[in-house]
């Protein structure tokens, strides 16, 4: 075991995969000598050189498209977009090309593409640098989407993403980059579509994504003190989504809370809720509850922003909102 931050864990995962497979490439803005704007690719340039760890001009559409070109030529490619908000410039390759090429060519190619991009919510960067846009991506058939919440998962998931012969968007949380975790010394991966039950509980099922997983665990602790026993589930990947684990939990608890930093309307919360409602309606004591940002652009002012990004207190409140709370 060794200790790494979330950012270092991703770095180690990429590094190990690049050692395993000489064909793997990294492309992006400032990913080379500089090591990435948040340091995630630090040292890769030194180890693998500028051919494989490639600083690109500032053009997201071309970066992701070039990565697709490499991928369909048998070179698994990892493209970095510096903030998730900039997926807007690369939406065509991310949604119209990468996840569809194999399909509309009748299976003639595979597209081993990983698009890494961090979510900056809650850091005061303002509305064009703070969005969590995974809801767009789960609506694109053919695309996989990972949202790691801790260092261990981050490493295991990035390795799976890179090995996956299909396009993956790997959504990191800047707010988690410095959090530390214990990492096994031996090779491991975490499969896509397999949720983790972070805490067992009988009263409420709490599904949290990315940045909100640690907050959900804090909330659960606080709630335990109040006699409410919360089961915390981290889906880890939202496409594919391990709905089975969530449903099994809800069948036990009868209550569902979903927490994400993205704005509420059209967010993933609705999708998870509806899938549970469709399949476990009779088990539910009441409607699933969403904890999410309100439907406003994200203001830069710290005071305003902190009222936007969901926090422990919001999660606690949601878990206590059920009418016939058992506890």
């Amino acid at each position, binding site marked *: 075991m060794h200790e790494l931050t979330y950012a270092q864990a991703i770095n180690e995962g990429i590094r190990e995969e690049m050692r395993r497979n000489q064909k793997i490439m990294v492309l992006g803005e400032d990913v080379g000598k500089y090591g990435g704007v948040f340091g995630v690719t630090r040292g890769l340039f030194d180890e693998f050189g500028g*051919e494989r760890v490639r600083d*690109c*001009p500032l*053009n997201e*559409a*071309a970066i992701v*498209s*070039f*990565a*697709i*070109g*490499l*991928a*369909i*030529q*048998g*070179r698994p*490619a990892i493209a970095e977009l510096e903030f998730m908000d900039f997926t807007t410039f690369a939406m*065509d*390759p991310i949604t*119209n*090309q990468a996840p569809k*090429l*194999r*399909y*509309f*060519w*009748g*299976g*003639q*190619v*595979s*597209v*081993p593409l990983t698009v890494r991009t961090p979510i900056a919510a809650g850091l005061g960067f303002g509305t064009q640098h703070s969005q969590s846009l995974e809801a767009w991506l789960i609506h694109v*058939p*053919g695309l996989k989407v990972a949202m790691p919440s801790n260092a261990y998962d981050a490493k295991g998931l990035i390795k799976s993403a890179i090995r996956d*012969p*299909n396009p993956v968007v790997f959504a990191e949380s800047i707010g988690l980059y410095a959090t530390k975790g214990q990492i096994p010394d031996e090779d491991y991966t975490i499969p896509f579509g397999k949720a983790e039950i972070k805490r067992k509980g009988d009263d409420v099922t709490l599904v949290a994504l990315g940045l909100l997983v640690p907050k959900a665990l804090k909330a659960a602790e606080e709630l335990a003190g109040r006699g409410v026993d919360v089961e915390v589930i981290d889906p880890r990947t939202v496409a594919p989504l391990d709905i089975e684990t969530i449903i099994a939990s809800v069948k036990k608890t009868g209550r569902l809370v979903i927490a994400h930093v993205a704005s509420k309307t059209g967010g993933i919360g609705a999708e998870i809720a509806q899938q549970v409602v469709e399949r476990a309606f009779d088990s539910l004591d009441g409607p699933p509850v969403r904890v999410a940002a309100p439907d406003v652009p994200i203001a830069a002012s710290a005071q305003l922003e902190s009222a936007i990004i969901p926090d422990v207190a919001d999660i606690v409140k949601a878990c206590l909102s059920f009418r016939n709370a058992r506890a």
Partner: protein
Amino acid sequence: MTLSDEQQIEALRRMWQIRFFEEAAIRLYGEGRYRGSTHPYIAQEATALGVCATLRPTDQVLATYRGHGAAIAKGADPRGMMAELLGKATGMCKGKGGSMHMSQTDVGFLGCNAIVAGHIPIAGGVALAQKLDDTGAVTAVFFGDGASCEGVFYETLNMATLWKLPLLFVVENNEYAISTHVSESISVPNISMRAQGFGLPGVTVDGRDFYAVYDAAGEAVARARRGDGPTLLEAKTVRWGRHSAVAAGPAGANIDKWKLTDPIPRFKQELLQRGVVSEAQISDIERDAKATIDDAVAFAIESPYPELSELQTDMYA
């Protein structure tokens, strides 16, 4: 590079195949045998052949939705193409792609793309892979004057030049993007002039002249194989008339002008003059091309539609 007689004969054959393929595509659309749309390559055949005659089987070609010509020129199978057009299970993409997404990777045809210019930066990545593979292979990417207005085209010009990629940009300037004339959409008289802002060679040739295209493409491909980087090749051409089988009335060049500049009779004439073929041989080639396409049509019509279970296949590798 010099062209053998066989190569020139094969080029004529494929030009005819393209012409007959597209005529059949329009006819079959009219008969209601498929839906969506199709974008005929008619009158542009000399460009696809002029470029592809300079390529090896291991080179790669990417094209737009108006890409049946490039497909045939790169050696794609007309049966698979025609079946694809009709959405049949025997189509090269199992019917999932249709007219605008044909591809046949085993002959180096990395497909048509229905997003205008979307394939240009993908071609950049393909060329980067080739450069890293270091086998001397090159990529040619075909696109229209309209496509040359999309930002990703310029992004790719910059990156390809910067990284000296073995990439041949072939912009087919047929003067129109649907209804929009180049004079209304492009701020310079020749699209090849864009190259001046990016530091790569830019060349304009008559796209209806097989030999002119071949010579310019040959130089560009040689340059790319040497590791000297990309070239922007503008092939000036005309559009037969309608943008697509569904588009409203002709907005492009009218049919009289088109007949005067038809690249196929012109190429035929040159082949005769150069003594590559006789009149009789030419008739044989034309007949043979016709037979190939007729066979493809029959094959496509007889082929079954995909099973509904095919909906769920090919999504993930």
